């Protein structure tokens, strides 16, 4: 019997960039194939070729022995291929049911039939453990729910091969576990699954076989049972890479203190801050953990001057903050690495060099009299920042949005660190980055700490928090726990607290 999917000699370039070179593999029914690789290794391009979004320069894709029409998603869907894109392809203003129906009925039918679809959706949801409300609007759903919907959409089209592109990138650990359970159910019912990721631990847990891509080429192919984690890690990056280790360091006086901070309720369902007390000293990394939406964002906003508390005090280096503006906090020495780096960190359509000096409008070296920007000095400053932080780009004039996530983050960190900040507020600084970039970010934060800066690290990645923080607080429903010393906590307790254990009844 021919395999479910057979990909032969795929080659694709974008201009001078070789995204895929001679890639071949097969997937059988009832197995999970993982494709591992760093950002930019060509994983998504490969999937987009299989699904027909892109035209390959060379090579063929066969599904159950028959060659697929090139560059036509419809042909892929009809052949039983379903794809969950990393950036969800959902219409936010429509309901779950409507999103499921897109493309399932001829556009020329005079009536959209919904009854059968609703039944089928319920059956599928039940069969694969993908709980969903068919009449809910997508813009009110969590990331996990949206992903369940995307998977249901593919199952609704009777897919036999499911492609998941970075499915766990923005899921909580619990949601990831739920996803893996569903994947196992699908596999046991005879589907084939391709999962793309750069998270080694997860891949080893879920997959049967692993293919590693690097710079567009297949560099390894192993059965998961025989795989060695360290070896895989080296295959992915092409060299040995290790995350930096936190060593004990001296702590100084408090750099930033919150006293009894409360914030206004926001319209979204995100929790507002309730009586938060927090002290972060120089030379300390304070880890803030919690399930998304429990007030971490508001905390970051108060700490960086983006949000004004309704009551309470913010004390920076012993002085009470009078003004809550990003500018005054910046001048007091605060650096803010936002969670949504693409929208809040950079201006995507402006050049790399402009983004590198974006915070320096008050710097007389770079902005001369009459507010004239000294372009050449700005460029050389930007070049210095980029080379010191290993930001890789094709041209310093290219729009910043074309940089990879890791390079954008390194640019942001470099820009802030050039100001020698004393307080650093970092929100999900390594989310969506590959291993090389993550260790770079961690190194920068630890370097700032040993230089005497106070670091607030807000993250949903427990491993990251435990690796970097000196002290840890848990947030739940806008309340903050007391700070624990890192060496005194265990993961089970943290997990319970993240679920609300130990916080007074609300």
């Amino acid at each position: 019997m021919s395999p479910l999917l057979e990909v032969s000699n795929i080659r694709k370039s974008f201009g001078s960039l070789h995204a895929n070179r001679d890639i071949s593999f097969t997937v059988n029914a009832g197995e999970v194939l993982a494709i591992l690789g760093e950002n930019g290794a060509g994983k998504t391009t490969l999937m987009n070729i299989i699904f027909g979004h892109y035209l390959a320069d060379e090579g063929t894709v066969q599904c159950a022995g028959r060659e697929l029409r090139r560059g036509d998603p419809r042909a892929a869907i009809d052949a039983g291929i379903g794809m969950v894109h990393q950036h969800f392809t959902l219409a936010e203003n429509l309901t779950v049911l409507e999103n499921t129906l897109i493309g399932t009925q001829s556009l020329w039918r005079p009536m959209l039939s919904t009854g059968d679809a609703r039944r089928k959706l319920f059956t599928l949801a039940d069969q694969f453990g993908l709980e969903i409300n068919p009449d809910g609007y997508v813009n009110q759903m969590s990331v996990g729910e949206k992903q369940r919907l995307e998977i249901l959409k593919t199952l609704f089209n009777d897919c036999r091969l499911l492609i998941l592109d970075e499915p766990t990138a923005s899921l909580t650990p619990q949601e990831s576990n739920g996803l893996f359970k569903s994947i196992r159910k699908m596999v046991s019912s005879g589907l084939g699954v391709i999962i793309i990721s750069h998270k080694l631990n997860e891949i080893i847990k879920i997959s049967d076989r692993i293919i590693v891509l690097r710079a567009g080429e297949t560099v390894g192919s192993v059965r998961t049972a025989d795989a060695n984690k360290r070896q895989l890690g080296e295959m992915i990056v092409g060299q040995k890479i290790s995350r930096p280790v936190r060593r004990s360091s001296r702590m100084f006086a408090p750099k930033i203190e919150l006293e009894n901070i409360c914030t206004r309720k926001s319209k979204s369902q995100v929790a507002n801050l309730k009586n938060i007390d927090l002290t972060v000293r120089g030379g300390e990394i304070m880890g803030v953990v919690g399930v998304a939406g429990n007030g971490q964002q508001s905390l970051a906003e108060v700490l960086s001057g983006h949000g004004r508390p309704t009551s309470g005090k913010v004390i920076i280096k012993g002085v009470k903050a009078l003004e809550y503006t990003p500018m005054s906090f910046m001048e007091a020495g605060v650096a803010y690495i936002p969670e949504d780096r693409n929208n809040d960190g950079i201006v995507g359509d402006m050049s790399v060099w402009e983004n590198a000096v974006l915070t320096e409008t008050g710097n007389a070296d770079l902005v001369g009299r009459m507010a004239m920007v000294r372009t050449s000095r700005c460029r050389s400053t930007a070049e210095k920042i980029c080379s010191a932080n290993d930001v890789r780009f094709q041209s310093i004039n290219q729009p910043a949005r074309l940089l990879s996530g890791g390079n954008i983050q390194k640019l942001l960190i470099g820009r802030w660190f050039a100001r020698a900040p004393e307080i650093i507020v970092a929100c999900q600084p390594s989310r969506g980055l590959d291993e090389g970039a993550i260790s770079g970010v961690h190194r920068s934060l630890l370097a700032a700490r040993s230089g005497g800066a106070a670091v607030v690290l807000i993250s949903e990645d427990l491993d990251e928090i435990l690796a970097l923080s000196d002290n840890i607080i848990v947030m739940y429903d806008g309340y903050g726990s007391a700070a624990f010393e890192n060496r005194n906590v265990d993961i089970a307790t943290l997990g319970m607290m993240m679920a609300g254990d130990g916080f007074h009844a609300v």
Partner: protein
Amino acid sequence: MIFDFLEVLVNAGFWAATIRIACPLLLATLGELMCERAGVLNLGIEGIMSIGAMVGWTAVYMGADLSTGVMAAALIGAAFGLVHAGFTVYLGASQHVTGIGITLFASSIGYFAFRLLLPSSTTPPKITAFQPIDIPVLSDLPFLGEAFFQHTAFTYLAFLAVPFVLWLMNRTPFGLAVKVAGENPMALEAQGIDVLGVRTLAVIIGSALMALGGAYLTMSAFDAFYFGMVNGRGWIAVALVIFASWRPSKALLGALLFAGLDAYQVRAQQLAGAIVPYQFFLMMPYLLSIVAMVVAAKSTRYPKALLTPFRRGERH
């Protein structure tokens, strides 16, 4: 004095006028709404209404019957919609620039053709336009009959466009595809549907509706064609789409509201013209529209992909 102003509201003639004034606005607003729901702003609306008015009128003047005239107007609208879609959807050109270009071109070519046809007439000739039809039984009702059931066939057609667009947008697979094309075209592409085709068809249908809005002016209201007769109704429709939050039922409400204000100001002028300058009343519908827009726009949510061209196979 106050009573005089209130009395206008219980006058059947006022309500009948409101209905008449609302028709072209309603058709144009529904047309613009179709285009924008698909992600394409169509600023060609003013010109498309103008050429629709001219072609519909000319067809009848040349001897065609009224329904053929209506069809001709819709067809010329669809043709200009195809041009707009060709530039904005397939070539990814600026929707603002293309739309304004189409408005300038369509209104000028319409008037040019009209002049070639009737080089010497100074007073615009009239056609035998749609005549009022009394709806049996209903038209005999006191007050309601005169206000709502003694209108022309074109008027009833304009109001039937509301359920038509509601059905198209909310009950058909095509309407679902249109809404997705304007929200997240990638979601259509990922289901193997031709985004560009869906957008183009929506713009064509929308533009045909706009042209009908223009044709209403020459075929059911003024019975003649003259230069500049659309007189900004297209731009009002663009604003009404936002007022309506891109929903057909609220478009009906918006068109009626604006038409009601317009009908009211004419009557208010007669009542108070001696005390207050008439320009003040002329201004009122626009002023109140701005107020309504400000209130309505607070909670409004644009189709996310409005103004964004879609290109296949590009890295996003």
